Structures are given as C-alpha cells and as structure tokens.
C-alpha cells in the first residue's frame, strides 16, 4: 500500500458540498425519510445502500428537488449546496438541476442524434456562443463519458441506436455537458452487463476528480468498488455513514452488519 492510496481515502479532508440537516420526506401520509442528516463531501463518491423501499432514492431525489415533481411529496429540513438552501424560494429548480445533474436507472437518451442529446443542455442554458463552442463542449462531454472514441464517427446517428452500456455512458455525457458540480446517479448500472458496468464505474472514479458523485446502488460490491463513503439507509432512517472500508470491514451498527453480510435484518 503506498501513501497515495491512503491519501486518496482521506476524504474527510475534502470540503462539504451538500449538507442535509434533519430532513424528513412525506408522500401523503407515508413518512418516507425520517430525520436524516448527512454531509456529502466534494470530489468524493458517496454511495447510498439499503434494502428496497428504505428511502435511498427518495433522499437522492431531494438533493436536486426532483421530488418537487410529485404532488403529494413534502420535504422538510435543511439541504444546503455550498451553504445555500436549495429549497429557498429564490432558487430556480431548473438552474439547480443544471448544477446537480442526474443519471437514472435505465438509459434514457432523447430520440435525437448523439450530438443533440449532449448539446441539449448546453443549448438551453446558453453555455455556447457559437457552433464551434458547442462542438467543443459536446466532444469534451463525450470524452468525459468515456464514449467519444466509439461514437465520434457517427455523432448524427440516433442515440437510441447505441447499445445499453453506450446509451448509459451517453446519458452520463449528457449530464456532465452542463458542467454540473454534483452528479446524482440512481442505480446507473442496473440495466448493464458486467463489462459495461465496469466501464461506468471507471468513469465514476474519473468524474470524482471534478465532481461530487452520489450513487444509489443495490449492488453492495459496486458501492464497495466505487465509493469512498457509504451511507446505509433502513426504513427511512440513515443508520450508519462512514468511510467505505470501515463500513465493509467493521460496521458499527448491527443492522448494517446484517445487511452487508447478507443476513436477514
């Protein structure tokens, strides 16, 4: 083990990007998230794990106000991005989502060309002054999405014609095209084969240099492989949050232990 790897794990040294305090989420009468407080570090991959229905996706969706789109959903508590309350009435959710990008479970490219899929966000946010600018943004995003070499000769072919793994990397390229600061990923690999999964994981590790990445995953091995910090959710509560190595070798809470060792909990 060299010092560099140890240094890399010292994620607590990174500053806090998103700070959530005493968050509660209700869907109508259902209390989905119960008093969750968590600090998400910058330039770090944070994994949310937990059984189905534990609230990890719901909580993830609070971080860029995706829950606003659900009528019966009510969020209380304080969520701050760089010390600004994202639920403040002056915050425009569209601008917020440009800063806090999202990648979903199933690849969902627009029924447009590969180029237009990526160019869509920069266009509506006015990030490019001219065609050359836009070309550059698209290329940079596709390179970041680790898919440039595979699509550079067919940028105007439909995005839906790509394989599943390619489509997902295209969606990641689309998400990073608007230069977000945080990237939320809700089970980004659940529809991918193992090789495409590894490619996306490698990509996540590269994205960590520039972004704060939060990933919800059902695969504990994936959480172990890609994240530096892991949060375990159970029945709407945050049970344990800590350095990934610690969570997987020596969890402090019995419920975490039961869940990660595959025992009934």
């Amino acid at each position, binding site marked *: 083990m060299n010092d560099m790897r140890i240094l890399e794990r010292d994620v607590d040294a990174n500053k806090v990007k998103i700070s959530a305090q005493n968050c509660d989420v209700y869907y109508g009468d259902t209390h989905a998230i119960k008093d969750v407080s968590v600090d998400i570090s910058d330039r770090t991959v944070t994994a949310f794990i937990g059984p189905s229905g534990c609230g990890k996706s719901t909580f993830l969706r609070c971080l860029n106000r995706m829950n606003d789109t659900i009528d019966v959903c009510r969020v209380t508590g304080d969520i701050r991005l760089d010390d600004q309350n994202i639920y403040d009435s002056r915050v425009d959710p569209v601008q917020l989502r440009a800063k806090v990008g999202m990648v979903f479970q199933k690849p969902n490219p627009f029924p447009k060309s590969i180029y237009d899929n990526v160019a869509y966000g920069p266009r509506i946010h006015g990030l490019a002054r001219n065609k050359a600018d836009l070309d550059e943004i698209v290329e940079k995003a596709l390179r970041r999405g680790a898919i440039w070499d595979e699509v550079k000769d067919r940028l105007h072919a439909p995005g839906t014609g790509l394989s599943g793994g390619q489509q997902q990397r295209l969606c990641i390229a689309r998400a990073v095209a608007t230069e977000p600061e945080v990237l939320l990923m809700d089970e980004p690999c659940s529809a991918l084969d193992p090789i495409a999964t590894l490619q996306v994981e490698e990509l996540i590790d590269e994205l960590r240099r520039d972004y704060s990445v939060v990933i919800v995953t059902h695969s504990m091995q994936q959480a172990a492989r890609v994240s530096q910090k892991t949060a375990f959710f159970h029945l709407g509560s945050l049970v344990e949050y800590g350095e990934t190595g610690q969570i*997987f*070798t020596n969890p402090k809470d019995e419920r*975490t232990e039961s869940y990660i*060792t595959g025992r009934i909990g």
Partner: protein
Amino acid sequence: MSEQQHILTSFDRDLEAIQAMIMKMGGLVEQAIIDAAISLERRDEELAEQVRRNDRAIDELEERINEECARLLALRAPAASDLRTVLTVMKISANLERIGDYAKNLGKRTSVLVQMQPIDGASGAIRRMAIVVEDMLKNALDAYVTRDAELAAAVRVRDHEVDQMYNALFREFLTFMMEDPRNITACMHLHFIAKNIERMGDHVTSIVEQVIYLSTGEMPDDDRNKGDNTSYAGKKD
C-alpha cells in the same frame, strides 16, 4: 459470527465447514503437544514417532483451510464479520501449523534423548509447561468458537507464565551443563524443547489476538508484560 443466518444458506455451510476444519486442526495440535510431552517424560519412542507421523494430517488440514478460504473470498466476497472470520481463520491455521511443527520437533528430539542419561526433573518441568500451553490453546479455541474477547484476553495474559517457566528451565540447564560437560548434548536438546514450547505459547498468544480482532474489529494494542528475558542472560549489569 453473527447469530443470524445468511439468506443464502450455502454461505453458512461454507463458513461452518471452515470452522469445523479449524476445530479439528486445533484438536490434533492439542493432542500433539500432550503426546510429545508424555513421550519425553516416559521415554516412549513409539509415541514420539506417532507425533511426528501425525503432523502430516495437521499440515494437510492447513492446506485445505487455505484453499477453502481462497474459494470463499473469491466466490462470496465476504464483508464485515464474515470477512474478519476468513482472515482470522487463515492466520489461526498458520499458527496452529507452526505449533504442530514444534510438537513434531519435540518428538524428534525425544528419540535422541531416550538414548542418553536422563536429566533430573527436566522432563517433568517440560511436561508441566506443555500442559499450560495446551490449556491456553484449548481456551483460545473456545474463545474463537464463542467469539469471547474476554476469555481471549485472559489467555493472552497467561503467556507470561510460560515465559517464566522457560526462564527457570534455561537457568537450570545452564547449571547442569556447567556441573558436568557430559550433560551438554542432552541439555541442548532439552533447551530447544523448552524454547519450542515457549514459542508455542507465543503462537497461542497470536491466535487469541486474532480472536480479539474477530470479535471487536480491532487488534489489542496495549503492551503485554513479556516474561522471557533469557535474551539478556549472562549480560553484565
């Protein structure tokens, strides 16, 4: 190991199989320590030879345990206490194998010693030392099975006792050799035997430290009182 069962029962069966092998290995090693000491005291060449032969079974078990652990790591990707169990089992089996080797070495030296004039009181003292080590090992294995960090810590302290017994024997052998140079060969063999039993105690200590890691997730870090000071024997103040 947690009281709860895994959702995948075959995972439990894998872990139980490894557990059974380490217990079997522990039983064989305990027997080897006692038999080796008895063979020395009774000058029983037959029993000494048997100890040497039985070491093969211990070595084979170590190999099988290593294979099973490698398999479990590769196929099950164990985490938390399951991971610590596998890591611990691998280390404990290595310790047990070393203790078995020392017992085997005791058997070899016994077959030489039976041809010599016995040294007064030596084999009795060595047997008593072996019994302490065997009892420590028994408790260490009990602590492992029950994940009992307290019992493990108690065993760890007892290594001091073994060290002191070794110290006393060291001085005694020195005296015998100075009294009559014809005792030197026998005393050298007996000294190695005593040293080997003292080393067995160190391996048992290492086992209980693993048990403490297994049950608490952390290695004990406080310094034990070390009783073996023969490294400084003959040093002028």
